């Protein structure tokens, strides 16, 4: 017993036979109800990115039109089949948008503008995709810096310098100099910062990181 309605079967046959009106009838018959479904299921998208819904329905309809055998009248009504396909295409479009947006967020014009990517706290709730991208970038930067700063503390210091950290207390913590007096702390921090800065400048590490981030 087919699940598809008579109208579904009629439309499906028109498409299979490449009837001159098939594409127009497909959009005419099912377009509005599928858009209504997506607008109901994704009200926020409908408000903010209405064109994504139109594009997703189009993609789904053309997908079916070009490969009508993907629809099995025994399993589904054509409306439901097109709803599923349109929703899938909408979700994919939303994912692409999100990825694009995240990539743009993670591409600073200048390393200075990027707020210490390795130090950025992940306490703020991030979505899994954002976290994956951030981790990937962080790993790339780590492996680059490791080549020039095999000593873990030096690497941490380099990250702080590249992240334009200016507070002496932060460097004091990293080097474990808390037991020294302020003057000694400042002297040692300055000496080590100068040493690390020279390695960074000599090897053009800022530029290398920019390339990694681009």
């Amino acid at each position, binding site marked *: 017993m087919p699940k598809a309605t008579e109208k579904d079967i009629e439309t499906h046959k028109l498409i299979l036979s*490449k009837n*001159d*009106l098939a*594409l*127009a*009838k497909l*959009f*005419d018959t099912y*377009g*509005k109800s599928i*858009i*209504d479904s997506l*607008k109901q299921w994704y009200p926020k998208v409908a408000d903010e990115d209405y064109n994504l819904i*139109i*594009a997703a*329905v*189009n993609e789904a*309809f*053309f997908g079916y039109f070009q490969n009508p055998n993907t629809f099995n009248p025994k399993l589904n009504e054509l409306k439901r089949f097109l709803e599923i396909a349109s929703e899938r295409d909408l979700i994919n479009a939303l994912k692409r948008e999100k990825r694009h947006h995240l990539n743009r967020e993670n591409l600073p014009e200048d390393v200075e503008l990027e707020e210490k990517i390795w130090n950025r706290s992940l306490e703020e709730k991030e979505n899994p995709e954002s976290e994956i991208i951030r981790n990937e970038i962080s790993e790339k930067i780590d492996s680059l810096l490791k080549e020039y700063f095999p000593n873990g503390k030096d690497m941490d210091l380099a990250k702080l310098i590249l992240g334009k950290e200016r507070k002496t207390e932060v460097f004091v913590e990293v080097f474990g100099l808390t037991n020294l007096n302020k003057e000694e702390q400042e002297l040692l921090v300055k000496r080590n910062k100068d040493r690390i800065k020279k390695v960074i400048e000599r090897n053009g590490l800022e530029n290398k990181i920019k390339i990694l981030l681009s």
Partner: protein
Amino acid sequence: MNDKVELLRYAVQKISDNRDYMGFYLKKYCSLERITDAQLIGKLNSDYEDYFKLGLCIAPESSNKDFLDKVNVISDYTHISSLDIIHIIKYVATIEHFNDIPSESILMAARDKAKKKNNNDK
């Protein structure tokens, strides 16, 4: 535009470079006549929905025997006059045909015609 019209418009745009569809002829016609879709809709005494539905129909081949039958079917479905549909198809097809002919051939034909006329006048 309502949802359905917006969807139809988007679909026509997608196939408007494919000469198998009426969307191709509508786009070319507008471009040749330097008019907008809205203006053509006015000329056809149609509305957006029927106009874009026309765009999604397969364009009948004017050299085929069943050309008129096919145009009539499309006309019934879109409520747009058969004469208007034929005019659009033939107009675009003719211009396209001339565009496909190398300009030298047209100039040579014009030259031959002029020569012939001169000879007859003598």
